[in-house]
């Protein structure tokens, strides 16, 4: 639970694309270096087949696979696994650094619902987050699918879940200046599409949530509904528009932001476990 902020700094302030992953069959943590080698060979082969189209230079990809011991919720969770793809530097000197071009990591934060019900040979890491070009994601995903007989699916986030997130995160106590609590709606089926951005001062949003939430540490669907209804009512009072009928596509707070296409950005290490726990839950419900 005490995640070293240094080790997790790389997670923050990046837009991660989310996937759910079914349990990995016969994944052995001792063999991470082998996996890196095999994945590297796979990628090289894919490039030679011309399946990954990269404009320009002949690219030499270096693969690193590592275990992040601290990135988990409970002892039942598997530690996170990080895969990094770097461009091997052209210069031969030892000082020149390789350029990181793609990262992806598997994790489980309080994913007991899944791991409890799964046979021994399986490793549960239901949440997969990627950052980098889609072509690399697809190669890495294909290799894992082939090797561990698992299945990846993009994790979309429904308006219902987005409203949970914004209510939860709006209530978070943060030191220092916080950014606005923003909800972005889209109204697509009009003659001309309309986007509505509704940004609330973080202090005022938190004040509203604090009066709605009855039990600290616990959030109910009822409370989230009341919070959202308040925001919708305030909006309707001014503009006569039924925001509840529009599609909530993105929410953004000082803690994190999330987009309905399954893209999140985590901004504060303090709330990292909480955000990951919520996302793990979403991933698990998509798998089951």
């Amino acid at each position, binding site marked *: 639970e005490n995640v070293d902020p240094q080790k997790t700094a790389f997670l923050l302030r990046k837009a991660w694309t989310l996937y759910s992953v079914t349990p990995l069959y016969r994944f052995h943590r001792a063999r991470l270096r082998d996996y890196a080698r095999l994945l590297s060979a796979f990628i090289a082969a894919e490039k030679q087949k011309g399946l990954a189209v990269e404009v320009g230079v002949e690219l030499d990809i270096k693969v690193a696979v590592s275990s992040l011991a601290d990135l988990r919720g409970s002892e039942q969770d598997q530690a996170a696994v990080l895969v990094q793809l770097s461009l091997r530097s052209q210069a031969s000197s030892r000082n020149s650094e390789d350029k990181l071009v793609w990262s992806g990591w598997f994790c489980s934060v309080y994913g007991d619902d899944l791991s409890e019900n799964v046979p021994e040979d399986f490793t549960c890491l239901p949440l997969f987050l990627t950052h980098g070009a889609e072509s690399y994601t697809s190669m890495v995903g294909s290799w894992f699918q082939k090797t561990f007989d698992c299945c990846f699916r993009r994790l979309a986030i429904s308006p219902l879940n987005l409203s949970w997130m914004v209510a939860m995160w709006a209530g978070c106590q943060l030191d220092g200046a916080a950014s606005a609590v923003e909800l972005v709606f889209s109204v697509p089926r009009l003659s001309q599409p309309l986007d509505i*951005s509704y940004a609330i001062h973080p202090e005022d949003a938190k004040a509203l949530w604090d009066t709605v939430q009855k039990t600290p540490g616990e959030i109910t669907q009822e409370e989230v509904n009341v919070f959202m209804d308040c925001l919708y009512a305030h909006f309707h009072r001014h503009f006569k528009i039924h925001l509840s009928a529009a599609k909530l596509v993105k929410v953004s707070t000082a803690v994190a932001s999330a987009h309905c296409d399954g893209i999140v950005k985590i901004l504060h290490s303090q709330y990292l476990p909480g955000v990951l726990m919520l996302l793990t839950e979403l991933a698990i419900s998509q798998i089951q």
Partner: protein
Amino acid sequence: MDETVAEYIRRTVLKIPRDEIKTMLQKWGFLSEAQLQTLNFRQIKDNISQEVVQLCEENSADIKQAAVLDIIYNHIYHNKRMWSVYQMKKSGEELEYFDITDFKKKFKGRLRSALKNVTITFKEYEDNAIWIRVAWGTPYKKPNQYKPSYVVYHSQTPYVFISSSVLKSNLPLLCQALIVASNYHDIREMELRSHSLNSLKDIVFKRYSQNFQTYSPKPLQGGNSEPESADIRIVQENRSEKERIHRLNEEVFGGGPQPKLEFAQYKLETMFKSDPKMGVLDKKEPFRCLVKFSSPHLLESLKSLAPAGMADAPLSPLLTCIPHKARNYFKIREKKGLFPESFVSP
């Protein structure tokens, strides 16, 4: 020819879509028809622009002519820039005869007295629009031709449309020069911004169709109504409600096309009010919000909200007032006293 001028002309031509280059060069009129005939417009733009530069070299083009070409480009592609609207005020109401030569002289004079290094170019268009391009320098540096300001002034009106360069510090000087040259005594920025210069003009010159208070006794047939239901047994499906919405929309927005705006922004500083039964927030301070509406054609999309069932009809005056108040930036505060439900925007 100065190589900075050559480079500037080359880059300006490169911006133009290939099929438009010939027409634009003809409008420019700096190259003769004979010279234009020698150009091969079927090659890649890089080569076309090089050839144009060579011809300009033959004619010894200087920055003044290059600036005119830039105005022509921006006049046609004005939608690529963001325009703000300014309104000038006269002290008296004397109808003075507008003398374009006098205007230009005073404008240049005012700018040059403050700033030596500045390129000023004028071009007049048929609709009484005077386009002014100003490239700004410093006492020690020549003007930056790549970040000019553009001003569009309709001499018969108190309105000026400005697409400012990034160098905002020059804006006050620009405004001063405008009022001096046009014999006004003050200028203020309106809360109205858009990429569509023509729509801004439509709004301030009131050229869009406004709500006419005509009463139509018969229910409206056809027009904007939804296609008839497939099931012939459904005849009256919300028809009266649909017609009511349609009528209210027409009253508020008018029947014709709306001016094209891309966004409207509202800074809300009103109180949060709720049903006391809900037991939620009851602060004495405002609930601070910033709401932004965006659309390729904002007013048309707002107009379609009520028919789509997304909004009540009539739509809120905060939205419908945009064209006739000529603004798309608002600050809304609670109106104290008699009418707690209504809003005031300064």
